[in-house]
Structures are given as structure tokens and as C-alpha cells.
């Protein structure tokens, strides 16, 4: 069997692994990426494609997104392969007075955190799209939000990384891993031979706990399933990302006033016009293990929710549906961090539904961490692995 050496081994060929590979290779480090499947063959190809601040908790969360937006804007200029980048902003719509009140406080807090948010009234919403239901009261807007094609983005990052010398090995599953207590080197067994690495980054997404477990780590990430409908664009319904305000409630597990099924499947409207002229329509949130079967009951529920906000698109053609698994963490923040108990072992996973949004900032930050930089692009405390240390059992 072959044996190869690398300075940095990134486990995971999704968008997170891709962004880390790009920035580390660009900084001059020697990088190898391995994935058990193909490029973007997990969550990164079963999602929609947004770099959003609008749905992030005001403060650290939304700042992190804003930084990521800036990086993606730069990437759109420096990477060779186009990834359908557009920055039209995004909006949240409200269906009740309660939501309008909550939206106002959301906007105030975001503005205080320095983000470009503003309230929209009923008239603004009508201007946004004549296809909205008449009873919608208004909403809010985040001007900097942008949209990309997630797997073109992942491909583009890997293409860029390989130009800086990164090696990508696909269909190369981690079969076992150990750390030499004398040299501190990691030995990783794969079907394509042994890889000896000075540093390892676990960017395994929903499989990160499985990889971590090989060295005795307990990484609190669980798969949270989501469904998406791909619909044909038969009318000019809208040009930018639209979500219902209830999406925030659903995302953060708060109570909503919706029917039982909508609540059970965690369904909330997410509406995204793509460059290829389809609409990606979500969303749902369920803890059902690693089951990725498309559940038509959930799809129907999403369709009903969509028609509640856009009654006139009821006859649109559904082209396909798909589902994927988000890497969920108990506090809805990712883990982008060294692991204190294992020197030179890092985790970059657990982005739940924000992997596309936060890939760029994750890649940049991880590169700084790998180089032991003290001044990092964003503070690292909220996303340290050690924050879960004293949590004995993780509730889902």
C-alpha cells in the first residue's frame, strides 16, 4: 500500500473542507483533502445556496455572516470558476402582528450590531412581488445577503485550492486513525493507502462525530433533515431570497402558531430564485437519524406553506424534490476550533443550515488557527469545541 505525507489533512470534501483547503493552500501550507464520496456529495449538494445574515442571531452570529459575505464577494473575483454569485439582498415576511413586533426588535438589534437591516411595510412587500398573499403585513430586509450555487461554489474552491497545490483524493474513506504519542503524527488509513499528517482537520459535517470517535472524541453533532422542492419558474414571482419570519422560530426551536403538521415537520417557507431559473422552495427540520428518503408528506406540507404565502403559484410544476441532513449542534453555532486534548487536531463542522453561509469565514479562520495566529478574523470563543465540555448529555 502507498503511504503519503502531508502537512494538513482535511477530512471532508464538502463546502467547509473546500473553503479550508482553498485558504490553507493559498497561504502556502501543504494540504491534502480526502472524502469518502465525491466533491460536495453530502450536505453541500442537498441544500440551497445563500450567504445570509438575515436569519442569524444579532451579534456574533450575524457578524460572522457579514464577514463571510465579504469574503465570498472577494472569492467571486479571485476564483476562476464562476459560481453564480449574486448579492440582491433578502427579505423576511410576517403574517401576524406578533411577528411584526418581533421583526422590529430583530431589526433594531441587527442595526446595533452594525448590519444593514430595515423594516418593510405592506406596501414595500407588494412592490417586492405582486404574487404575495394580500394579508401579509410586512417584513424586513437585509441588503447585503447574497446567493450562490452551492456545488459550483464547492467545485470552484477546490479548483482554486488545487492551483495552489492542494491534493484532493475522492472515494477515499477514513477506515481508521491513530496518533503516534512520540512523534505526534496522525496515521490515517484509507482504501488508497496510509496518510501521515502533521495536522488533521475534521470537516466531516454530519459524519464528524464518527471521525472524531476514532480518537475518542465526543462531538455533539446530530443530523437534522430538511427537504427542498425544485419548481419551474413559470412567472416572475420574485428576484431574491424570501423567508417567512417563522423560519427563525423554527430554526431556533421556538414556539409558533401554526398547524400541527407544519409544526411537527418544522416547515417554514424559504424561497430562492436560482440563476438557472428554477425556484428552490423549503424548508423542513426533523431529527430522523440518517434517513435521507424524501417524505412526500413533508413535501406536501412545504407546498401548502408556500401557497399560503404565494397563492398564485399553486399550479407551478415541481421538477424534483430532494432531502439532506444538516449537521446540528445544541447551541446552533458551528465548531471551528482546535481540540485541546489532542494537539494539532481541529474540528470545522456543525454548521447546521449555515454551512454555505459560513464556509468562507470558516476556511479563513481555520487557516489562521492552523498557523497559530493570535489575532483572528473573528473571535473564536463562541465556536470553540471546549464549550461543550461540561455538557454531560446532549438533548435533541
Amino acid at each position, binding site marked *: 500500500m502507498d503511504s503519503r505525507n502531508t502537512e494538513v489533512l482535511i477530512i471532508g470534501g464538502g463546502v467547509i473542507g473546500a473553503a479550508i483547503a482553498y485558504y490553507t493552500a493559498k497561504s502556502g501550507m501543504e494540504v491534502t483533502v480526502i472524502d469518502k464520496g465525491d466533491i460536495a456529495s453530502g450536505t453541500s449538494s442537498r441544500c440551497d445556496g445563500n450567504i445570509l445574515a438575515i436569519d442569524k442571531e444579532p451579534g456574533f452570529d450575524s457578524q460572522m455572516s457579514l464577514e463571510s459575505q465579504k469574503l465570498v464577494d472577494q472569492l467571486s473575483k479571485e476564483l476562476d470558476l464562476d459560481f453564480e454569485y449574486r448579492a*440582491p439582498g433578502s427579505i423576511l415576511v410576517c403574517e401576524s402582528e406578533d411577528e411584526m413586533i418581533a421583526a422590529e426588535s430583530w431589526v433594531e438589534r441587527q442595526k446595533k450590531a452594525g448590519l444593514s437591516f430595515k423594516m418593510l411595510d405592506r406596501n414595500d412587500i407588494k412592490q*417586492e412581488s405582486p404574487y404575495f398573499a394580500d394579508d401579509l403585513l410586512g417584513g424586513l430586509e437585509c441588503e447585503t445577503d447574497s446567493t450562490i450555487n452551492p456545488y459550483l461554489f464547492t467545485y470552484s474552491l477546490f479548483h482554486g485550492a488545487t492551483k495552489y497545490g492542494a491534493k484532493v483524493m475522492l472515494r477515499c474513506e477514513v477506515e481508521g486513525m491513530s496518533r503516534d504519542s512520540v512523534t505526534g503524527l496522525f496515521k490515517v488509513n484509507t482504501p488508497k493507502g496510509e496518510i501521515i499528517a502533521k495536522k488533521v482537520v475534521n470537516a466531516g459535517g454530519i459524519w464528524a462525530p464518527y471521525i472524531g470517535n476514532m480518537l475518542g472524541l465526543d462531538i455533539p453533532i446530530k443530523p437534522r433533515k430538511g427537504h427542498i422542492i425544485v419548481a*419551474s419558474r413559470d*412567472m416572475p414571482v*420574485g428576484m431574491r431570497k424570501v423567508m417567512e419570519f417563522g423560519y427563525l422560530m423554527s430554526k431556533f426551536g421556538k414556539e409558533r402558531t401554526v398547524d400541527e403538521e407544519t409544526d411537527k415537520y418544522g416547515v417554514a417557507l424559504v424561497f430562492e430564485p436560482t440563476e438557472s431559473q428554477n425556484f428552490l422552495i423549503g424548508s423542513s427540520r426533523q431529527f430522523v437519524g440518517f434517513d435521507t428518503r424524501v417524505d412526500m408528506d413533508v413535501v406536501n406540507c412545504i407546498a401548502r406553506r408556500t401557497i399560503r404565502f404565494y397563492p398564485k403559484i399553486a399550479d407551478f410544476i415541481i421538477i424534483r424534490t430532494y432531502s439532506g441532513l444538516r449537521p446540528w449542534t445544541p447551541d446552533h453555532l458551528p465548531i471551528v476550533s482546535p481540540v485541546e486534548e489532542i494537539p494539532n487536531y481541529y474540528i470545522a463542522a456543525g454548521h447546521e443550515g449555515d454551512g454555505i453561509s459560513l464556509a468562507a469565514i470558516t476556511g479563513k479562520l481555520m487557516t489562521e488557527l492552523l498557523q497559530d495566529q493570535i489575532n483572528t478574523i473573528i473571535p473564536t470563543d463562541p465556536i470553540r469545541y471546549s464549550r461543550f465540555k461540561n455538557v454531560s448529555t446532549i438533548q435533541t
Partner: protein
Amino acid sequence: MSKGRIIDHPILGRLDEREEVHFTFDENKLIGYEGETIAAALLANGERVLRCHEETGKLRGIYCNIGHCMECRVNVGNQKSVRACLTVIQEGMEVKSGRKLPTPFKKGETQ
């Protein structure tokens, strides 16, 4: 019979006589044959363009011809987004190509 058709074939033989089917494509009167798809009837009439990218207006035609790629969507009567490669042409059918859609919104303009 038009020049777009393969009448004689060295192995498959001569094309059988078939009933004509009259239909329109963007109001132009065209003739197809019974049992053939919209895509085939249009191509036989020299029509390669079936729709366009709804935002940029870039033109599109058939690609996979087996119903998989969804590139050949046309409007038939009141029905939107029908796959031309799988739909059989009918007498009197009104087929319309997909058009560029207006983007009349105040905000969210991408240009």
C-alpha cells in the same frame, strides 16, 4: 414531407405513411405526424429554439430528449412547463415557446 425527415433508411427501410397533425407554434401553423412528440415535430419543421433563460433571454432547445433535463419546457394551451420531448403532438395543439419574463420589481434587481 419536409426535408427535416429521414424518409428512406438503408436498414430501417422507408418511413410508413402517417396521418398529418396540424398544430401551431407561437401562432405559426405547422404540420407534424401522429404519434410523434412536440420536440420531434418542431425539429422536423426546423424549429430548434423552444424557450429561453427566463431572466437573461439566452435561447434553449432540446438536450436529453428523454424527459430528464427539463430544458425543453414549452407551454401547451393553458398548461405551463410541458416537456416537449415526452408530449405527443395532438391535432389543433397550441404550443408556445417559453419567453423572457419581466423583472418589474423596485428592489432586488440584479443588473
